[in-house]
């Protein structure tokens, strides 16, 4: 018996040592630095400009900039169940940023998720998506980062994940299992335009990082629609539900291609608006996309068939809510709370005000399969993307101060009003989201790097008291 225990312990130890040893060796044979890297002319203005575009498509700035911090200097906290991790400084500062990266270092970090010191990156970095980007795109991005991004001296913040979960060697195993090399595969049944859209969506634009459900190992369940209908089928991250982008009832069925293009370009349409992380995606990334790329993406998303067992279309029920509210037949707590707290902006007809206050009637995030985003935007508020297309970017205030019961009642009313229909939200769902909001990650911005905002004022010379 005693001997058996000894053997078991010994075997475990051997296995562990083996696992560590394999993990440590992974970067050298699984994703080695490229042989004969190309000479990238980082001073070529045309290449830099292209690189800026690809960096925007890849939305590097969104994660690599902390709110209130300097661009690309990192420090944005991301909540994981075990603690926060922080994005890194990718400015060309040689000491704290990526200034000493060779092109081969850069390429391997972006496409394979491995740092020059042969340590694997957390999969929060979407290298599984970036992997399919073309060489010339990565080269252009390298030129842009090395030559056009302002260097910022800012140390990277250590993750707050406790030992032993903070050890990085298991990430190499993660890469072996979930980040096998792959290339973009055209789907012959799609048009050339749609295939271009697929290339962007699967690759640099990394839509799946938020919109594809993740498995137990935090891996995206599918990296391409060619593999699985789980691709872009909707997922929850930090309490935001990135809805299904498939052409299905609970996805984009009620959207037109033109509306999608308008949404990605401006962050809003006449009846809806981006909020949460999508608002930042539009503000920092998609608003800059070329028309060609936007139409390609929209056309591609519209080509994604519904998942098995999911309705292809969304049918609203009859709207009895507008008449009931307008006639003053207010009998339920959800109704009276709506009239008191919400109706001033979203209106009795649930249609809001075009491009100012989003509609709730027939809004696909309101009746989405998973109500997380609806709950969080109501509780914590939301901000529209600030783009050059609209004069004002409006916010929704947070209603954190309403009780769980009030929020559940009013959200169930909204989710089932004006022809909407969706699953019931419980007070427990509200409580759970309150916990997420309370534990929202803090960000790291050292005092000297606080980015003093160019106050929106408005007109030169205004003083703010």
């Amino acid at each position, binding site marked *: 018996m005693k001997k058996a225990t000894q053997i078991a312990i010994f075997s475990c130890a051997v296995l562990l040592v083996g696992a560590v040893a394999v993990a440590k060796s992974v970067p050298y044979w699984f994703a080695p630095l490229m042989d004969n890297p190309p000479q990238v002319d980082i001073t070529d203005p045309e290449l830099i400009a292209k690189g800026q575009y690809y960096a925007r498509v890849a939305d590097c700035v969104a994660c690599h900039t902390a709110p209130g911090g300097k661009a690309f200097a990192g420090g944005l906290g991301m909540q994981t169940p075990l603690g926060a991790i922080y994005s890194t400084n990718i400015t060309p500062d040689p000491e704290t940023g990526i200034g000493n990266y060779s092109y081969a270092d850069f390429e391997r970090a972006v496409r394979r998720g491995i740092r020059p010191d042969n340590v694997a990156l957390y999969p929060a970095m979407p290298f599984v998506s970036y992997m399919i980007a073309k060489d010339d795109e990565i080269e252009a991005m390298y030129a842009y980062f090395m030559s056009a991004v302002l260097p910022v001296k800012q140390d990277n913040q250590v993750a707050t994940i406790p030992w032993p979960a903070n050890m990085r060697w298991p990430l190499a195993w993660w890469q072996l299992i979930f980040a096998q090399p792959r290339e973009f595969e055209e789907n012959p049944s799609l048009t050339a335009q749609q295939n271009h859209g697929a290339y962007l969506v699967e690759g640099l634009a990394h839509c799946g990082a938020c919109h594809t459900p993740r498995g*137990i190992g935090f891996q995206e369940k599918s990296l391409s629609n060619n593999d699985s209908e789980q691709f872009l089928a909707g997922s929850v991250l930090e309490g935001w539900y990135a809805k299904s982008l498939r052409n299905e009832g609970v996805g984009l069925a009620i959207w037109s291609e033109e509306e999608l293009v308008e949404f990605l370009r401006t962050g809003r349409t006449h009846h809806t608006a981006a909020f949460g992380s999508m608002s930042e995606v539009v503000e920092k990334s998609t608003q800059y996309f070329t028309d060609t790329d936007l139409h390609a993406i929209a056309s591609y998303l519209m080509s994604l068939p519904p998942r098995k067992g999911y309705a292809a279309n969304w049918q609203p029920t009859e709207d009895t809510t507008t008449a009931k509210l307008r006639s003053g037949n207010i009998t339920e707590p959800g109704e*009276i709370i709506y009239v008191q707290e919400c109706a001033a902006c979203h209106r009795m007809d649930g249609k809001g005000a075009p491009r100012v206050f989003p509609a709730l009637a027939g809004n696909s995030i309101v009746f989405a399969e998973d109500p997380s985003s609806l709950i969080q935007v109501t509780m914590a508020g939301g901000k529209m993307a600030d783009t050059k297309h609209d004069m004002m970017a*409006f916010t929704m*205030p947070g209603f954190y101060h309403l009780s769980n019961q009030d929020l559940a009642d009013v959200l169930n009313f909204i989710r089932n009003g004006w022809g909407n229909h969706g699953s019931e939200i419980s007070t427990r769902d509200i409580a759970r989201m309150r916990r997420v909001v309370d534990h929202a990650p803090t960000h790291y911005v050292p005092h000297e790097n606080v980015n003093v905002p160019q106050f929106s*004022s408005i007109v030169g010379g205004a003083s703010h008291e």
Partner: protein
Amino acid sequence: MNKPIIAVAAIAVIAVAGWTWNESRYYDAPERPALNVVDIDGNIVGEYRAPLARDMLAEENAESIILGMRLLNETARLLPDNVGDGLNCNSCHMAQGKRPLGAPYINTINDYPKFMPRAQDVLNIQERINGCFRRSMNGVPLDESSVEMQAMVDYMDWLRGDVEKGNRVSIQNMEYFKVGQFTPDPVRGEQIYVQQCASCHGGNGEGMKDQFGDFIFPPLWGDESFNLGAGMARISRAAPFVLHNMPLGVSLDAPLGQITLSKQDAVDVSAYFTVKPRPDFPDKIHDWPGVPKPPDFRAH
């Protein structure tokens, strides 16, 4: 090799998820902050929290309170014979009359009857409400004994909660800062208007209507706007309102309307829109009887 790793990961994830799920049961809204209730000498005699919307349904006179709430929100639609423009009471009284510095109704019932400098007389609440109908809503007074008038009073009375007559909730209705100390610049005001107001109130101050033709955002000038006798036509009244309540929806903190403009901004933009063409109020000649009219009195 992979299976044990995945199994361990799965157990860890399930354990963490289970723990957070269980722990989340204790999360609910914090207790709402209270405002002080003070007596006539300024002594704190109690606390005030706005009554909860859901509790309105259980009130004995719930039907009247709800009617009052609706009339205050949708005055133009529900009282077309009394409202002559596109405004509602709650175009100016923000957040259902609950917003300090947004002309709240919280103290209204307890403040009236009240001496009004403009009338040089003590007005009761019905007379005060009718002042709004005649001026801000460019219409005709509501019968003081009507069901509708009673309903509006009942809503305000509900909002007062259990604050007794003679006491007040310690909030300000408006921050009447000294507008006269600022030099208004209507040219700059126009720039601010275009950038921060026109999205909702329209490039020509025409407001924005919904599918039924009812105003979502009120017109700030023109035939469907408030008349020359309205407080909002005077820069000393408009600027404090704008300062704390406009533009809407630019902050993550509830309620809508947070201070984002400077006083100078508020003065400049008010200097721009208040003087635009709007309906006349012939009875203005009877305002401030026997006393000097204020500098921003609108003769025309």
